[in-house]
Protein backbone atom coordinates (compact mmCIF):
# COMPACT_ATOMS: atom_id res chain seq x y z
CA UNK A 1 0.00 0.00 0.00
CA UNK A 2 1.23 3.45 -0.90
CA UNK A 3 1.88 5.23 2.36
CA UNK A 4 3.74 8.24 1.06
CA UNK A 5 3.47 9.55 -2.43
CA UNK A 6 5.25 12.62 -3.81
CA UNK A 7 4.02 13.76 -7.22
CA UNK A 8 6.46 16.19 -8.78
CA UNK A 9 6.92 18.24 -5.66
CA UNK A 10 8.99 21.41 -5.80
CA UNK A 11 9.94 23.85 -3.10
CA UNK A 12 11.02 27.24 -4.35
CA UNK A 13 12.32 30.04 -2.13
CA UNK A 14 12.35 33.46 -3.70
CA UNK A 15 15.69 35.12 -2.96
CA UNK A 16 15.32 38.60 -4.33
CA UNK A 17 15.68 38.40 -8.11
CA UNK A 18 16.63 34.78 -8.33
CA UNK A 19 14.73 31.76 -7.07
CA UNK A 20 16.25 29.01 -5.04
CA UNK A 21 14.92 25.62 -6.01
CA UNK A 22 15.38 23.58 -2.88
CA UNK A 23 13.37 20.76 -4.43
CA UNK A 24 12.84 20.33 -8.13
CA UNK A 25 9.98 18.09 -9.31
CA UNK A 26 10.64 15.16 -7.04
CA UNK A 27 8.41 12.13 -7.45
CA UNK A 28 8.77 9.15 -5.16
CA UNK A 29 6.52 6.55 -3.64
CA UNK A 30 7.14 4.87 -0.30
CA UNK A 31 5.24 1.75 0.73
CA UNK A 32 4.12 0.80 4.19
CA UNK A 33 6.82 -0.99 6.17
CA UNK A 34 9.79 0.27 4.19
CA UNK A 35 13.12 1.26 5.75
CA UNK A 36 14.40 4.03 3.56
CA UNK A 37 17.57 6.14 3.76
CA UNK A 38 17.77 9.55 2.17
CA UNK A 39 21.28 10.62 1.25
CA UNK A 40 22.93 13.57 -0.38
CA UNK A 41 25.36 16.38 0.35
CA UNK A 42 24.30 19.44 2.35
CA UNK A 43 21.96 21.68 0.43
CA UNK A 44 20.86 18.87 -1.82
CA UNK A 45 17.23 19.16 -0.66
CA UNK A 46 16.99 16.11 1.56
CA UNK A 47 16.01 18.11 4.63
CA UNK A 48 13.43 20.08 2.64
CA UNK A 49 12.05 16.78 1.42
CA UNK A 50 11.89 15.46 4.97
CA UNK A 51 10.11 18.62 6.15
CA UNK A 52 7.47 18.19 3.51
CA UNK A 53 7.06 14.48 4.26
CA UNK A 54 6.86 15.44 7.95
CA UNK A 55 4.03 17.89 7.26
CA UNK A 56 6.14 20.69 8.72
CA UNK A 57 6.18 22.40 5.35
CA UNK A 58 4.08 22.30 2.22
CA UNK A 59 5.41 22.12 -1.37
CA UNK A 60 5.27 25.14 -3.68
CA UNK A 61 4.23 22.91 -6.56
CA UNK A 62 3.22 19.29 -6.99
CA UNK A 63 1.25 17.07 -4.65
CA UNK A 64 2.25 15.31 -1.47
CA UNK A 65 -0.11 12.52 -0.46
CA UNK A 66 0.06 10.89 2.96
CA UNK A 67 -2.18 7.85 3.13
CA UNK A 68 -3.91 9.30 0.07
CA UNK A 69 -4.58 12.70 1.70
CA UNK A 70 -3.21 15.78 -0.04
CA UNK A 71 -1.25 17.54 2.70
CA UNK A 72 -0.90 20.66 0.59
CA UNK A 73 -4.60 21.34 1.02
CA UNK A 74 -4.55 21.14 4.80
CA UNK A 75 -4.44 24.00 7.28
CA UNK A 76 -1.96 24.57 10.05
CA UNK A 77 -3.92 22.72 12.71
CA UNK A 78 -4.84 19.83 10.44
CA UNK A 79 -1.15 19.36 9.64
CA UNK A 80 -0.44 19.44 13.38
CA UNK A 81 -3.05 16.73 13.86
CA UNK A 82 -1.40 14.55 11.19
CA UNK A 83 2.03 15.06 12.74
CA UNK A 84 0.58 13.99 16.04
CA UNK A 85 -1.17 10.86 14.77
CA UNK A 86 0.86 9.64 11.80
CA UNK A 87 4.40 10.85 12.30
CA UNK A 88 7.13 10.44 14.86
CA UNK A 89 10.15 12.72 14.70
CA UNK A 90 13.69 11.88 15.75
CA UNK A 91 16.20 14.69 15.42
CA UNK A 92 19.97 14.90 15.37
CA UNK A 93 19.93 17.14 18.44
CA UNK A 94 17.39 14.92 20.28
CA UNK A 95 15.12 17.93 20.92
CA UNK A 96 13.84 16.80 24.28
CA UNK A 97 12.30 19.33 26.65
CA UNK A 98 14.89 20.28 29.26
CA UNK A 99 14.07 20.02 33.00
CA UNK A 100 11.39 17.49 32.14
CA UNK A 101 11.63 13.80 32.97
CA UNK A 102 12.01 11.12 30.32
CA UNK A 103 8.52 9.89 31.13
CA UNK A 104 6.95 13.30 30.67
CA UNK A 105 8.88 13.89 27.46
CA UNK A 106 7.42 10.67 26.10
CA UNK A 107 3.93 11.61 27.32
CA UNK A 108 4.08 14.92 25.48
CA UNK A 109 2.48 13.88 22.14
CA UNK A 110 -0.44 12.36 24.05
CA UNK A 111 -1.03 15.65 25.87
CA UNK A 112 -2.11 17.07 22.55
CA UNK A 113 -4.64 14.41 21.66
CA UNK A 114 -6.52 14.10 24.89
CA UNK A 115 -5.38 10.69 26.14
CA UNK A 116 -6.40 10.19 29.77
CA UNK A 117 -3.68 10.55 32.39
CA UNK A 118 -3.62 6.89 33.39
CA UNK A 119 -3.44 5.56 29.87
CA UNK A 120 -0.85 8.18 29.00
CA UNK A 121 1.42 7.10 31.82
CA UNK A 122 1.04 3.45 31.01
CA UNK A 123 1.75 3.94 27.30
CA UNK A 124 4.79 6.08 28.06
CA UNK A 125 6.16 3.41 30.40
CA UNK A 126 5.76 0.72 27.78
CA UNK A 127 7.33 2.88 25.04
CA UNK A 128 10.34 3.52 27.27
CA UNK A 129 10.53 -0.21 27.90
CA UNK A 130 10.51 -0.88 24.16
CA UNK A 131 13.56 1.36 23.67
CA UNK A 132 15.31 -0.25 26.62
CA UNK A 133 15.11 2.59 29.13
CA UNK A 134 13.27 0.82 31.91
CA UNK A 135 14.11 2.34 35.28
CA UNK A 136 15.18 5.71 33.82
CA UNK A 137 11.67 7.14 33.57
CA UNK A 138 12.33 9.93 36.05
CA UNK A 139 15.73 10.96 34.75
CA UNK A 140 15.95 14.38 33.17
CA UNK A 141 17.66 14.76 29.78
CA UNK A 142 20.80 16.21 31.35
CA UNK A 143 21.13 13.07 33.48
CA UNK A 144 21.11 10.83 30.42
CA UNK A 145 23.82 10.00 27.87
CA UNK A 146 23.40 10.99 24.22
CA UNK A 147 22.34 7.49 23.23
CA UNK A 148 19.80 7.37 26.06
CA UNK A 149 18.43 10.77 25.12
CA UNK A 150 17.98 9.58 21.54
CA UNK A 151 16.14 6.53 22.86
CA UNK A 152 13.80 8.80 24.78
CA UNK A 153 13.19 10.69 21.54
CA UNK A 154 12.44 7.43 19.76
CA UNK A 155 10.06 6.39 22.53
CA UNK A 156 8.32 9.74 22.08
CA UNK A 157 8.08 9.08 18.32
CA UNK A 158 6.44 5.66 18.73
CA UNK A 159 4.25 6.28 21.77
CA UNK A 160 1.25 7.42 19.71
CA UNK A 161 1.60 4.31 17.51
CA UNK A 162 2.45 6.54 14.56
CA UNK A 163 2.98 4.44 11.42
CA UNK A 164 5.93 6.53 10.27
CA UNK A 165 9.18 7.57 11.94
CA UNK A 166 11.13 10.41 10.38
CA UNK A 167 14.71 10.45 11.60
CA UNK A 168 16.89 13.39 10.58
CA UNK A 169 20.53 12.30 11.06
CA UNK A 170 19.63 10.54 14.30
CA UNK A 171 23.22 9.34 14.88
CA UNK A 172 24.93 12.59 13.93
CA UNK A 173 25.78 13.41 17.53
CA UNK A 174 26.56 9.88 18.67
CA UNK A 175 29.67 7.69 18.71
CA UNK A 176 29.95 4.62 16.52
CA UNK A 177 28.97 2.12 19.18
CA UNK A 178 25.89 4.05 20.26
CA UNK A 179 25.00 4.75 16.62
CA UNK A 180 24.93 1.03 15.99
CA UNK A 181 22.59 0.46 18.96
CA UNK A 182 20.25 3.20 17.78
CA UNK A 183 20.18 1.83 14.24
CA UNK A 184 19.46 -1.66 15.56
CA UNK A 185 16.57 -0.19 17.49
CA UNK A 186 15.20 1.34 14.29
CA UNK A 187 15.61 -2.01 12.55
CA UNK A 188 13.75 -3.72 15.36
CA UNK A 189 10.89 -1.21 15.23
CA UNK A 190 10.73 -1.58 11.45
CA UNK A 191 10.89 -5.35 11.54
CA UNK A 192 8.77 -6.17 14.59
CA UNK A 193 6.27 -3.33 14.74
CA UNK A 194 6.10 -2.72 11.00
CA UNK A 195 6.80 0.99 11.39
CA UNK A 196 7.92 2.73 8.21
CA UNK A 197 11.26 4.44 8.85
CA UNK A 198 12.64 7.33 6.81
CA UNK A 199 16.19 8.22 7.68
CA UNK A 200 18.30 11.16 6.55
CA UNK A 201 22.04 10.52 6.73
CA UNK A 202 25.23 11.14 4.86
CA UNK A 203 27.11 8.20 6.36
CA UNK A 204 27.06 5.14 4.08
CA UNK A 205 27.42 2.67 6.98
CA UNK A 206 24.32 4.15 8.62
CA UNK A 207 22.45 4.02 5.32
CA UNK A 208 23.50 0.37 5.13
CA UNK A 209 20.93 -0.48 7.81
CA UNK A 210 18.15 0.46 5.44
CA UNK A 211 16.67 -1.54 2.60
CA UNK A 212 16.29 1.27 0.10
CA UNK A 213 18.40 4.37 -0.52
CA UNK A 214 17.36 7.47 -2.44
CA UNK A 215 19.87 10.22 -3.24
CA UNK A 216 19.37 13.91 -3.76
CA UNK A 217 21.58 16.36 -5.61
CA UNK A 218 20.75 20.03 -6.20
CA UNK A 219 17.11 19.47 -5.34
CA UNK A 220 16.66 16.56 -7.71
CA UNK A 221 16.21 12.90 -6.98
CA UNK A 222 19.18 11.31 -8.70
CA UNK A 223 19.09 7.68 -7.65
CA UNK A 224 16.76 5.17 -6.03
CA UNK A 225 18.18 1.73 -5.26
CA UNK A 226 17.24 -1.31 -3.25
CA UNK A 227 19.84 -2.64 -0.79
CA UNK A 228 20.64 -6.20 0.03
Amino acid sequence: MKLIEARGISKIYPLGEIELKALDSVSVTIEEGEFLAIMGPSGSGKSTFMNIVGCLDIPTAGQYLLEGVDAGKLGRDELAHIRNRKLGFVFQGFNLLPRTSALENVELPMLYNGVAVKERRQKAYSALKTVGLEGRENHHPNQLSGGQQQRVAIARAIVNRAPIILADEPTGNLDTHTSREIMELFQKLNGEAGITVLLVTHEPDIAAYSRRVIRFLDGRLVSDEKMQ
Partner: protein
Amino acid sequence: MISIPWTARIALRALKVNKMRSALTMLGIIIGVGAVIAMLAVGTGASRQIAEQMATMGSNLLIILPGSQTSGGVRTGFGGQTTLTLGDAEAIQRECQAVQDVAPIHNGTAQVVYGNLNWSTGVMGTTGGMNDVRDWPVGAGRPITDEDVRSATKVALLGQTVVDNLFGGIDPLDQIVRIKKIPFKVVGVMAVKGQSVMGQDQDDAVFVPVTTAQKKLFGTSFPGMIRQIMVKAKSARDLDPAEKQVTELLRQRHHIGAKKDDDFSVRNLTQMMQAAEQQTQIMTLLLGAIASVSLLVGGIGIMNIMLVSVTERTREIGIRMAIGAKTWDIRLQFIMEAIILSLIGGTVGLIAGVTGSQILSVVAGWRTIVSPFSALLAFAFSGIVGIFFGFYPAYKASLLNPIDALRYE
Protein backbone atom coordinates in the same frame (compact mmCIF):
# COMPACT_ATOMS: atom_id res chain seq x y z
CA MET B 1 -6.60 19.90 22.33
CA ILE B 2 -4.65 19.95 25.55
CA SER B 3 -6.68 20.18 28.73
CA ILE B 4 -6.67 23.33 30.87
CA PRO B 5 -5.30 21.70 34.06
CA TRP B 6 -2.34 20.35 32.11
CA THR B 7 -1.76 23.69 30.47
CA ALA B 8 -1.73 25.19 33.96
CA ARG B 9 0.76 22.57 35.13
CA ILE B 10 3.07 23.23 32.23
CA ALA B 11 2.79 26.97 32.79
CA LEU B 12 3.52 26.63 36.51
CA ARG B 13 6.60 24.57 35.79
CA ALA B 14 7.85 27.10 33.27
CA LEU B 15 7.39 29.86 35.84
CA LYS B 16 9.24 27.87 38.48
CA VAL B 17 12.29 27.59 36.23
CA ASN B 18 12.78 31.36 36.39
CA LYS B 19 11.72 32.02 39.97
CA MET B 20 13.39 35.40 40.33
CA ARG B 21 12.06 36.63 37.03
CA SER B 22 8.53 35.43 37.76
CA ALA B 23 8.62 37.05 41.19
CA LEU B 24 9.78 40.38 39.82
CA THR B 25 7.14 40.30 37.11
CA MET B 26 4.50 39.57 39.71
CA LEU B 27 5.76 42.48 41.80
CA GLY B 28 4.41 44.85 39.18
CA ILE B 29 0.95 43.34 39.52
CA ILE B 30 1.25 43.10 43.30
CA ILE B 31 1.98 46.81 43.54
CA GLY B 32 -0.77 47.63 41.05
CA VAL B 33 -3.48 45.58 42.73
CA GLY B 34 -2.29 46.62 46.19
CA ALA B 35 -2.40 50.29 45.24
CA VAL B 36 -5.87 50.01 43.71
CA ILE B 37 -7.24 48.25 46.79
CA ALA B 38 -5.57 50.63 49.25
CA MET B 39 -6.71 53.72 47.36
CA LEU B 40 -10.28 52.46 47.06
CA ALA B 41 -10.18 51.62 50.76
CA VAL B 42 -9.16 55.18 51.60
CA GLY B 43 -11.89 56.59 49.39
CA THR B 44 -14.57 54.25 50.67
CA GLY B 45 -13.52 54.99 54.23
CA ALA B 46 -13.80 58.73 53.66
CA SER B 47 -17.25 58.53 52.14
CA ARG B 48 -18.45 56.18 54.88
CA GLN B 49 -17.22 58.68 57.42
CA ILE B 50 -19.15 61.45 55.73
CA ALA B 51 -22.24 59.30 55.60
CA GLU B 52 -21.97 58.60 59.31
CA GLN B 53 -21.42 62.25 60.14
CA MET B 54 -24.45 63.02 58.08
CA ALA B 55 -26.38 60.79 60.39
CA THR B 56 -25.01 62.60 63.49
CA MET B 57 -26.02 65.99 62.06
CA GLY B 58 -29.61 64.95 62.32
CA SER B 59 -31.56 63.95 59.30
CA ASN B 60 -33.87 66.00 57.07
CA LEU B 61 -32.36 69.18 58.37
CA LEU B 62 -32.88 72.74 57.13
CA ILE B 63 -30.86 75.62 58.53
CA ILE B 64 -32.19 79.13 58.26
CA LEU B 65 -29.65 81.92 58.47
CA PRO B 66 -30.20 85.66 58.39
CA GLY B 67 -29.53 87.16 54.98
CA SER B 68 -26.84 89.54 53.82
CA GLN B 69 -27.25 93.27 54.02
CA THR B 70 -26.39 95.97 51.56
CA SER B 71 -25.59 99.38 52.97
CA GLY B 72 -23.96 102.00 50.79
CA GLY B 73 -23.01 99.38 48.21
CA VAL B 74 -21.20 97.21 50.73
CA ARG B 75 -22.73 93.78 51.10
CA THR B 76 -22.20 91.82 54.25
CA GLY B 77 -22.15 88.03 54.24
CA PHE B 78 -24.94 85.81 55.44
CA GLY B 79 -25.82 86.68 58.97
CA GLY B 80 -24.78 90.28 58.46
CA GLN B 81 -28.36 91.22 58.85
CA THR B 82 -30.05 90.19 62.01
CA THR B 83 -33.55 89.48 60.86
CA LEU B 84 -34.55 86.25 62.53
CA THR B 85 -36.51 86.27 65.71
CA LEU B 86 -37.78 83.80 68.19
CA GLY B 87 -41.23 84.64 66.84
CA ASP B 88 -40.16 83.37 63.41
CA ALA B 89 -39.16 80.04 64.94
CA GLU B 90 -42.46 79.75 66.77
CA ALA B 91 -44.39 80.65 63.64
CA ILE B 92 -42.59 77.97 61.61
CA GLN B 93 -43.41 75.41 64.26
CA ARG B 94 -46.99 76.50 64.29
CA GLU B 95 -47.73 76.98 60.61
CA CYS B 96 -45.52 74.85 58.38
CA GLN B 97 -47.12 71.46 57.96
CA ALA B 98 -44.05 69.71 56.57
CA VAL B 99 -42.01 70.69 59.61
CA GLN B 100 -41.70 68.29 62.50
CA ASP B 101 -39.67 70.34 64.93
CA VAL B 102 -37.86 73.65 65.22
CA ALA B 103 -34.84 74.73 67.22
CA PRO B 104 -34.08 78.47 67.40
CA ILE B 105 -30.44 79.13 68.16
CA HIS B 106 -28.73 82.09 69.71
CA ASN B 107 -25.16 81.25 70.44
CA GLY B 108 -21.74 82.58 71.32
CA THR B 109 -18.52 81.63 73.01
CA ALA B 110 -18.04 81.96 76.71
CA GLN B 111 -15.81 80.91 79.54
CA VAL B 112 -17.44 78.26 81.73
CA VAL B 113 -16.15 77.96 85.25
CA TYR B 114 -16.61 75.23 87.82
CA GLY B 115 -14.69 75.40 91.06
CA ASN B 116 -11.11 76.22 90.16
CA LEU B 117 -11.42 74.85 86.62
CA ASN B 118 -12.50 76.80 83.57
CA TRP B 119 -13.10 75.98 79.94
CA SER B 120 -13.91 78.09 76.90
CA THR B 121 -16.69 76.61 74.84
CA GLY B 122 -19.58 77.33 72.54
CA VAL B 123 -22.74 78.20 74.45
CA MET B 124 -25.91 77.57 72.55
CA GLY B 125 -29.19 79.10 73.50
CA THR B 126 -31.98 76.90 72.20
CA THR B 127 -35.17 75.08 73.12
CA GLY B 128 -36.11 71.50 73.83
CA GLY B 129 -36.81 71.12 70.11
CA MET B 130 -33.05 70.88 69.55
CA ASN B 131 -32.91 67.31 70.88
CA ASP B 132 -35.30 66.14 68.20
CA VAL B 133 -33.99 68.33 65.40
CA ARG B 134 -30.41 67.17 65.83
CA ASP B 135 -31.30 63.59 66.80
CA TRP B 136 -29.34 64.27 69.95
CA PRO B 137 -30.92 62.97 73.14
CA VAL B 138 -30.10 63.94 76.71
CA GLY B 139 -27.83 61.36 78.32
CA ALA B 140 -28.60 62.15 81.94
CA GLY B 141 -30.92 64.64 83.62
CA ARG B 142 -33.60 66.54 81.73
CA PRO B 143 -33.84 68.59 78.54
CA ILE B 144 -34.62 72.31 78.29
CA THR B 145 -38.33 72.74 78.87
CA ASP B 146 -40.79 75.30 77.54
CA GLU B 147 -41.00 76.63 81.08
CA ASP B 148 -37.23 77.25 81.02
CA VAL B 149 -37.62 79.19 77.79
CA ARG B 150 -40.62 81.17 79.03
CA SER B 151 -38.99 82.34 82.21
CA ALA B 152 -35.37 82.40 80.99
CA THR B 153 -34.17 80.17 83.81
CA LYS B 154 -30.47 79.83 84.46
CA VAL B 155 -30.12 76.13 83.71
CA ALA B 156 -27.57 74.42 81.48
CA LEU B 157 -27.03 71.09 79.72
CA LEU B 158 -23.38 70.17 79.21
CA GLY B 159 -21.73 68.31 76.36
CA GLN B 160 -19.55 65.39 77.37
CA THR B 161 -16.28 67.17 76.50
CA VAL B 162 -17.20 70.05 78.80
CA VAL B 163 -18.07 67.60 81.57
CA ASP B 164 -14.71 65.85 81.13
CA ASN B 165 -12.80 69.12 81.28
CA LEU B 166 -14.59 70.69 84.22
CA PHE B 167 -15.72 67.87 86.44
CA GLY B 168 -13.25 65.02 86.20
CA GLY B 169 -14.90 62.28 88.26
CA ILE B 170 -17.66 64.34 89.88
CA ASP B 171 -21.30 63.96 88.84
CA PRO B 172 -22.15 67.32 87.26
CA LEU B 173 -25.90 67.09 87.81
CA ASP B 174 -27.26 69.82 90.10
CA GLN B 175 -23.85 71.46 90.34
CA ILE B 176 -23.52 75.15 89.68
CA VAL B 177 -21.29 76.36 86.84
CA ARG B 178 -20.69 79.97 86.01
CA ILE B 179 -21.01 81.17 82.44
CA LYS B 180 -19.78 84.73 81.96
CA LYS B 181 -19.77 84.91 85.76
CA ILE B 182 -23.48 84.12 85.93
CA PRO B 183 -24.31 80.99 87.90
CA PHE B 184 -26.19 78.24 86.03
CA LYS B 185 -27.54 75.03 87.43
CA VAL B 186 -26.55 71.91 85.49
CA VAL B 187 -29.76 70.02 84.82
CA GLY B 188 -28.53 67.53 82.27
CA VAL B 189 -25.68 66.05 80.31
CA MET B 190 -26.03 65.43 76.58
CA ALA B 191 -25.39 62.01 75.07
CA VAL B 192 -22.05 61.64 73.28
CA LYS B 193 -22.33 62.85 69.68
CA GLY B 194 -18.83 62.73 68.20
CA GLN B 195 -17.28 64.72 65.40
CA SER B 196 -19.15 66.81 62.90
CA VAL B 197 -18.55 66.72 59.16
CA MET B 198 -16.00 69.49 59.51
CA GLY B 199 -14.19 67.57 62.20
CA GLN B 200 -15.51 69.70 65.04
CA ASP B 201 -16.05 68.10 68.41
CA GLN B 202 -19.80 68.48 68.81
CA ASP B 203 -19.64 67.45 72.43
CA ASP B 204 -17.68 70.58 73.25
CA ALA B 205 -20.82 72.67 73.90
CA VAL B 206 -23.15 73.96 76.56
CA PHE B 207 -26.89 74.34 76.04
CA VAL B 208 -29.01 76.93 77.78
CA PRO B 209 -32.56 78.18 77.16
CA VAL B 210 -32.61 80.52 74.18
CA THR B 211 -34.20 83.34 76.14
CA THR B 212 -31.49 83.10 78.79
CA ALA B 213 -28.84 83.37 76.09
CA GLN B 214 -30.56 86.42 74.66
CA LYS B 215 -31.11 88.28 77.89
CA LYS B 216 -28.22 87.27 80.13
CA LEU B 217 -25.33 86.06 78.02
CA PHE B 218 -24.98 87.48 74.52
CA GLY B 219 -27.54 90.22 74.25
CA THR B 220 -29.53 91.11 71.14
CA SER B 221 -29.56 94.09 68.78
CA PHE B 222 -33.33 94.06 68.96
CA PRO B 223 -35.76 92.09 71.11
CA GLY B 224 -36.15 88.42 70.26
CA MET B 225 -33.24 88.27 67.80
CA ILE B 226 -31.70 84.87 67.20
CA ARG B 227 -28.76 83.80 65.04
CA GLN B 228 -30.28 80.86 63.24
CA ILE B 229 -33.16 78.43 63.15
CA MET B 230 -32.78 74.72 62.65
CA VAL B 231 -35.76 72.92 61.18
CA LYS B 232 -36.42 69.22 60.89
CA ALA B 233 -38.76 68.14 58.14
CA LYS B 234 -41.17 65.30 58.78
CA SER B 235 -39.43 63.05 56.25
CA ALA B 236 -36.92 63.21 53.42
CA ARG B 237 -39.83 63.72 51.02
CA ASP B 238 -41.05 66.68 53.11
CA LEU B 239 -37.71 68.50 52.82
CA ASP B 240 -38.60 70.43 49.67
CA PRO B 241 -42.16 71.35 50.78
CA ALA B 242 -40.75 72.39 54.17
CA GLU B 243 -38.19 74.61 52.47
CA LYS B 244 -40.91 76.22 50.39
CA GLN B 245 -43.30 76.70 53.32
CA VAL B 246 -40.60 78.21 55.52
CA THR B 247 -39.48 80.59 52.78
CA GLU B 248 -43.03 81.71 52.11
CA LEU B 249 -43.82 82.19 55.76
CA LEU B 250 -40.68 84.17 56.51
CA ARG B 251 -41.13 86.42 53.45
CA GLN B 252 -44.59 87.16 54.73
CA ARG B 253 -43.49 87.80 58.27
CA HIS B 254 -40.60 89.98 57.11
CA HIS B 255 -42.84 91.93 54.71
CA ILE B 256 -40.71 91.27 51.65
CA GLY B 257 -42.21 92.48 48.41
CA ALA B 258 -42.63 90.16 45.45
CA LYS B 259 -39.59 91.53 43.59
CA LYS B 260 -37.23 91.76 46.52
CA ASP B 261 -34.65 89.23 47.63
CA ASP B 262 -35.05 87.18 50.76
CA ASP B 263 -33.44 88.66 53.86
CA PHE B 264 -32.61 85.16 55.05
CA SER B 265 -31.36 81.97 53.48
CA VAL B 266 -32.57 78.43 53.86
CA ARG B 267 -29.92 75.74 53.57
CA ASN B 268 -30.66 72.15 52.96
CA LEU B 269 -27.97 70.31 54.88
CA THR B 270 -28.80 66.94 53.44
CA GLN B 271 -28.12 68.28 49.99
CA MET B 272 -24.83 69.75 51.11
CA MET B 273 -23.86 66.43 52.59
CA GLN B 274 -24.80 64.60 49.45
CA ALA B 275 -22.64 66.98 47.48
CA ALA B 276 -19.77 66.30 49.86
CA GLU B 277 -20.32 62.57 49.50
CA GLN B 278 -20.34 62.89 45.76
CA GLN B 279 -17.04 64.71 45.91
CA THR B 280 -15.56 61.91 47.95
CA GLN B 281 -16.79 59.42 45.43
CA ILE B 282 -15.11 61.37 42.67
CA MET B 283 -11.95 61.43 44.73
CA THR B 284 -12.21 57.66 45.21
CA LEU B 285 -12.55 57.16 41.49
CA LEU B 286 -9.61 59.43 40.84
CA LEU B 287 -7.41 57.62 43.36
CA GLY B 288 -8.44 54.31 41.85
CA ALA B 289 -7.67 55.56 38.37
CA ILE B 290 -4.22 56.72 39.38
CA ALA B 291 -3.55 53.40 41.07
CA SER B 292 -4.73 51.51 37.99
CA VAL B 293 -1.91 53.12 36.07
CA SER B 294 0.52 51.08 38.14
CA LEU B 295 -1.54 47.99 37.38
CA LEU B 296 -1.23 48.84 33.70
CA VAL B 297 2.53 49.19 34.06
CA GLY B 298 2.58 45.82 35.79
CA GLY B 299 0.68 44.38 32.84
CA ILE B 300 3.23 45.77 30.43
CA GLY B 301 5.91 44.11 32.57
CA ILE B 302 4.14 40.77 32.08
CA MET B 303 3.97 41.31 28.34
CA ASN B 304 7.65 42.17 28.23
CA ILE B 305 8.68 39.06 30.15
CA MET B 306 6.38 36.85 28.11
CA LEU B 307 7.95 38.13 24.90
CA VAL B 308 11.40 37.31 26.29
CA SER B 309 10.12 33.91 27.34
CA VAL B 310 8.71 33.16 23.88
CA THR B 311 12.03 34.02 22.25
CA GLU B 312 13.98 31.95 24.78
CA ARG B 313 11.75 28.97 24.30
CA THR B 314 11.44 29.09 20.53
CA ARG B 315 12.96 25.64 20.24
CA GLU B 316 10.57 24.22 22.83
CA ILE B 317 7.70 25.72 20.84
CA GLY B 318 9.12 24.05 17.72
CA ILE B 319 9.30 20.67 19.45
CA ARG B 320 5.75 20.98 20.69
CA MET B 321 4.54 21.95 17.24
CA ALA B 322 6.41 19.06 15.59
CA ILE B 323 4.75 16.52 17.85
CA GLY B 324 1.29 17.92 17.24
CA ALA B 325 0.59 21.03 19.30
CA LYS B 326 -2.02 23.12 17.53
CA THR B 327 -2.20 26.91 17.32
CA TRP B 328 -4.39 27.23 20.39
CA ASP B 329 -2.36 24.70 22.39
CA ILE B 330 0.66 26.98 22.12
CA ARG B 331 -1.38 30.12 22.55
CA LEU B 332 -3.12 28.82 25.67
CA GLN B 333 0.16 27.75 27.19
CA PHE B 334 1.59 31.26 27.14
CA ILE B 335 -1.66 32.98 28.00
CA MET B 336 -1.93 30.62 30.95
CA GLU B 337 1.52 31.64 32.13
CA ALA B 338 0.54 35.29 31.96
CA ILE B 339 -2.73 34.62 33.78
CA ILE B 340 -1.02 32.65 36.51
CA LEU B 341 1.55 35.41 36.95
CA SER B 342 -1.13 38.04 37.26
CA LEU B 343 -3.49 36.00 39.42
CA ILE B 344 -0.78 35.10 41.92
CA GLY B 345 0.27 38.73 41.76
CA GLY B 346 -3.37 39.70 42.27
CA THR B 347 -3.74 37.47 45.33
CA VAL B 348 -0.56 38.74 46.95
CA GLY B 349 -1.53 42.27 45.91
CA LEU B 350 -4.90 41.81 47.60
CA ILE B 351 -3.17 40.86 50.84
CA ALA B 352 -0.73 43.74 50.40
CA GLY B 353 -3.57 46.15 49.72
CA VAL B 354 -5.54 45.09 52.78
CA THR B 355 -2.44 45.23 54.98
CA GLY B 356 -1.43 48.53 53.42
CA SER B 357 -4.78 50.14 54.09
CA GLN B 358 -4.68 48.95 57.67
CA ILE B 359 -1.22 50.44 58.08
CA LEU B 360 -2.52 53.66 56.53
CA SER B 361 -5.38 53.85 58.97
CA VAL B 362 -3.03 53.29 61.91
CA VAL B 363 -0.20 55.57 60.78
CA ALA B 364 -2.15 58.35 59.06
CA GLY B 365 -5.29 57.90 61.13
CA TRP B 366 -7.47 57.69 58.03
CA ARG B 367 -10.49 55.53 58.07
CA THR B 368 -10.11 52.81 55.42
CA ILE B 369 -12.64 50.23 54.33
CA VAL B 370 -11.77 47.40 51.97
CA SER B 371 -15.05 46.56 50.34
CA PRO B 372 -15.46 43.04 48.93
CA PHE B 373 -16.42 44.69 45.69
CA SER B 374 -13.13 46.55 45.33
CA ALA B 375 -11.20 43.39 46.17
CA LEU B 376 -13.13 41.45 43.57
CA LEU B 377 -12.68 44.25 41.07
CA ALA B 378 -8.92 44.44 41.52
CA PHE B 379 -8.66 40.67 41.33
CA ALA B 380 -10.76 40.39 38.18
CA PHE B 381 -8.86 43.30 36.71
CA SER B 382 -5.54 41.56 37.28
CA GLY B 383 -6.88 38.47 35.50
CA ILE B 384 -7.94 40.61 32.58
CA VAL B 385 -4.54 42.28 32.54
CA GLY B 386 -2.97 38.80 32.32
CA ILE B 387 -5.12 37.78 29.39
CA PHE B 388 -4.74 41.09 27.63
CA PHE B 389 -0.98 41.43 27.94
CA GLY B 390 -0.36 37.71 27.61
CA PHE B 391 -2.22 37.43 24.36
CA TYR B 392 0.20 39.17 22.03
CA PRO B 393 3.26 37.11 23.07
CA ALA B 394 1.17 33.95 22.92
CA TYR B 395 -0.16 34.92 19.53
CA LYS B 396 3.37 35.53 18.31
CA ALA B 397 4.50 32.14 19.63
CA SER B 398 1.62 30.29 18.05
CA LEU B 399 2.40 31.65 14.61
CA LEU B 400 6.04 30.61 14.58
CA ASN B 401 7.09 28.43 11.69
CA PRO B 402 7.81 24.99 13.20
CA ILE B 403 10.87 24.42 10.99
CA ASP B 404 12.46 27.75 11.93
CA ALA B 405 11.53 27.23 15.55
CA LEU B 406 13.18 23.81 15.63
CA ARG B 407 16.38 25.20 14.13
CA TYR B 408 16.49 28.17 16.51
CA GLU B 409 19.65 28.25 18.58
